[in-house]
């Protein structure tokens, strides 16, 4: 019996090389029994690789170094081997089957059955017990597709508990969750900690790490840099963690910017949008906003506030039904019934989900860059390949996109570089209004700063910029004026000087019944 002082997990001198690249170099990680241990680092620092080594995705023999779990050196050949010892990893992309029930998913691959025949009574009873433990009050026979992402996350944890988990690894568990669900999840982790379950959490959200973790290990460029004791004498601030991640102090997380605001460019009046599948549901409710040249306007809101829906419905009616309201460009009313028309009128919309809606991941940089405005480099329908390369190359240099050449396949770039390709693509359409939906989502701290600089540069060039973001500090850091949305309505607008997180949050949570309309 190991006593409580020995760590539950020790990874010693882990080195993992891919052809030509050292992804991990002599990484050391020590996790104590019954703690929440955070791992943070920039994208590509090697966090996920380390967890894949730990969970047996990369089998023993493909890496150097030792994994010591509960005092014994482990040699996992498959993920199953690690699960048998009680190490369960929950990946960023949830691995649930949408058409199966919660109970079926919990016991998938581990069915409550005798002789191949499922014991449904036992399945559902045990599922209910597990759901109670994670604080989810759904019937076990509810289908996964009928519950939200936050609840799905809880089902994943229930599934892990069913496997008698001792060490739970969560890779970016709150990336897709709203604040409420995130808070619930963090509570649950604390609760599990009290029951003796150790967790490792990988997260980009530094405030969460500060709130929940007992120790934080920082990984940079494939090396373990330091482990911070979060309950030590010296309080650990977010800036302290960032310093470890980027290797130096970040004096300002947001670049300084003095706006040069001009005339109004875009005005949206009385914009109402209904849900595409349920036309009785109002998603955007009589919203009115405007943005001027050189101005960066933010839109804040919780999940479901209708920010993305507002943007997409304006952008060539790419979302929603029964759309009503008016769009003015330079004071003149315009009709933007198709995406093509919106682009022609100088609108650009860079989506929040670049992998699914923004980029063709199997194509290269140059073809993605030109894809929204092939007209610009073609004559009589024939594309001028040479001009295409020249343009793509120019944007690559301007944006400092890191890639060997514009021939590089976009799917293989890092998140920050992919985002730069998205921005290149929309700048190539020569827009007057840029709507940037979560422009820094899933991007590491250093690259975020570069994106902010690009946004400032665009505003300085006279463009009207709308930034939709779920990170309030980001909006407060870069916007000149911020709108708040709640339940489809624009509930307020605050100039930068007067805005703070609390004032925004009040507008963002304003209930419909309290409205005066």
């Amino acid at each position, binding site marked *: 019996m190991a006593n409580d002082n020995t760590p539950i997990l020790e990874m010693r001198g882990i080195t993992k090389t891919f052809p030509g690249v050292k992804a991990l170099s002599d990484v050391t990680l020590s996790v104590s029994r019954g703690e929440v241990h955070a791992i943070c680092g920039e994208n590509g620092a090697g966090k996920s690789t380390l967890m894949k080594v730990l969970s047996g995705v990369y089998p023993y023999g493909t890496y150097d170094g030792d994994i010591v779990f509960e005092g014994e050196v482990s040699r996992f050949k498959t993920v199953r081997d690690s699960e048998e010892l009680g190490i369960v990893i929950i990946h960023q992309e949830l691995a649930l089957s949408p058409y199966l029930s919660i109970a079926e998913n919990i016991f998938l691959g581990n069915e409550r059955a005798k002789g191949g025949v499922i014991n449904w009574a036992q399945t559902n009873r045990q599922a209910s017990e597990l759901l109670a433990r994670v604080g989810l009050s759904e019937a076990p026979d509810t289908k996964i597709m009928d519950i939200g992402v936050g609840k799905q996350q809880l089902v994943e944890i229930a599934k892990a508990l069913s496997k008698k988990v001792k060490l739970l690894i969560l890779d970016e568990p709150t990336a897709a969750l709203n604040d409420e669900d995130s808070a619930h999840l963090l509570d649950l982790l604390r609760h599990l900690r009290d029951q003796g379950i150790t967790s490792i959490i990988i997260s980009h959200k530094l405030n969460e790490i500060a709130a929940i973790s007992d120790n934080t290990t920082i990984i940079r460029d494939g090396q373990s840099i330091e482990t911070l004791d979060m309950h030590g004498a010296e309080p650990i601030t977010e800036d302290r963690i960032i310093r470890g991640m980027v290797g130096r102090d970040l004096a300002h997380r947001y670049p300084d910017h003095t706006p040069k605001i001009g005339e109004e460019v875009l005005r949206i009046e009385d914009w109402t949008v209904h849900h595409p599948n349920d036309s009785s549901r109002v998603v955007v409710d009589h919203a009115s906003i405007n943005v001027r040249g050189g101005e960066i306007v933010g839109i804040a809101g919780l999940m479901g506030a209708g920010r993305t829906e507002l943007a997409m419905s304006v952008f060539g009616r*790419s979302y929603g039904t029964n759309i009503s309201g008016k769009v003015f460009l330079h004071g003149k009313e315009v009709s933007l019934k198709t995406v*093509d028309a919106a682009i022609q009128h100088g609108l650009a919309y860079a989506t929040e989900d670049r992998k699914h809606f923004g980029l063709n991941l199997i*194509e290269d940089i140059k073809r993605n860059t030109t894809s*929204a*405005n092939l007209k610009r480099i073609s004559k009589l329908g024939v594309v001028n390949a040479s001009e295409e390369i020249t343009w793509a190359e120019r944007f690559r240099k301007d944006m400092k996109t890191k890639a060997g050449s514009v021939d590089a396949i976009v799917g293989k770039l890092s998140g920050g570089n992919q985002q730069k390709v998205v921005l290149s*693509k929309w700048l190539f359409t020569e827009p007057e209004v840029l709507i940037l939906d979560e422009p820094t989502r899933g991007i590491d701290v250093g690259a975020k*700063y570069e994106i902010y600089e690009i946004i400032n540069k665009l505003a300085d060039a006279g463009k009207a910029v709308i930034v939709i973001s779920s990170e309030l500090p980001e909006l407060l850091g870069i916007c000149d004026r911020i709108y708040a949305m709640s339940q489809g309505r624009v509930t307020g607008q605050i100039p930068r000087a007067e805005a703070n997180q609390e004032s925004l949050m009040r507008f963002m949570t304003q209930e419909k019944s309290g409205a005066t309309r």
Partner: protein
Amino acid sequence: MSASTTLAQPSAAPDPSKKNDGGSLKSYLGQNLRQYSMIGALVVIVVLFQIFTDGKLLLPNNVASLIQQNAYVFILTIGMVMIIVAGHIDLSVGSVVAFVGGVTALMITDHDIPWLLAVVLAVVLGGVVGAWQGFWVAYVGIPAFIVTLGGMLIFRGLAIVLVGTTVAGLPSGFNDISNGSLPAALGYLGNLDGLTVLIGVLAAAGIVISQIRTRRELVKNDLRAEPFAAFIGKLVVSIIVVGYITYLLASSAGGTPIVLIIVGALVLIYTFVMNNTVFGRHVYAMGGNLPAAMLSGVKTKRVNFMLFVNMGMLAGVAAVITTSRAGSAVAAAGTNFELDAIAAAFIGGTAVNGGVGKVTGAIIGALIMGVLNIGLSIMAVDAAWQQAFKGLVLIAAVAFDIMNKRRSK
């Protein structure tokens, strides 16, 4: 200068897009394994059958009939690649060939329409059929699998109604499309047809010039061009292959088959369309990521519609060629043609999920199928076994593709 340049450290993550990757010949071949393996497979199959058939496979007349017999696959697979790249499938082309072929034959025999006009009308009719299917796929949103499965039944049924069993008595001019060759207008050089030799020389020159221009463009823009040795090697091999095929055709009974000119022109046109036009780009963009294409302003419905119209027109061309080859319209014509075209596309490296695929690749796929067909026929292998064998080759080709992709990950 600004903080940004120093902040974003190059991470330790694998960066496969490093420059100079194309530097060494070995790594270049590694990266282009799929492309070369397909050509390699074709060469291996040709050599094997050359041995198994005691050298009969590459007899001049056999090469000519290889082209004539398989012209329909070449033509259909061009359209099929485009359809599959966009993320669809077309199961109806075999039935459309029978239907359009039947109408064409009836126009000529029963309605005394000049055969040349009938050929034009056949292509138009194919386009109308394609518009019918494209309407359901693009504007109503029914999956192409369903629409063309319906089309397969509809047009086969209509073909039987119209044709009965056979419509014969077609003029010799019409029959020459698939069975005839270009006239020996330039006389003979020894026993070689002069016109064929001229065409061969022009083709070789065309390949060399276009390759040099492409390479110059790449180098000029500092993009990854293949190593010089590979470039020269490719040119030399292309010249030898074109030269050898020219020699074989020039010494065959007829010279250059007429269908070779038709197929060659279509391959050139569609390679250009897919590589260099806005339309082609939109097809790849839709196959690679449909929502992203929509949000980039691509008129996806219109592109889908046009793809099916185009497929129908190519099916019309194939119908003419098939009817001409047989010398009559048969209700059962074109049976399994869709499967040949789809198989050729997949053997030629088209991705099952769309987004990736080349006209030239599909043509190589069709050649592999064609060589199998004629080689096995010369060896007098039973037709049933031929079919089974082709099925195995299809699975092997796609399996190779998948394993290759997995390894490169």
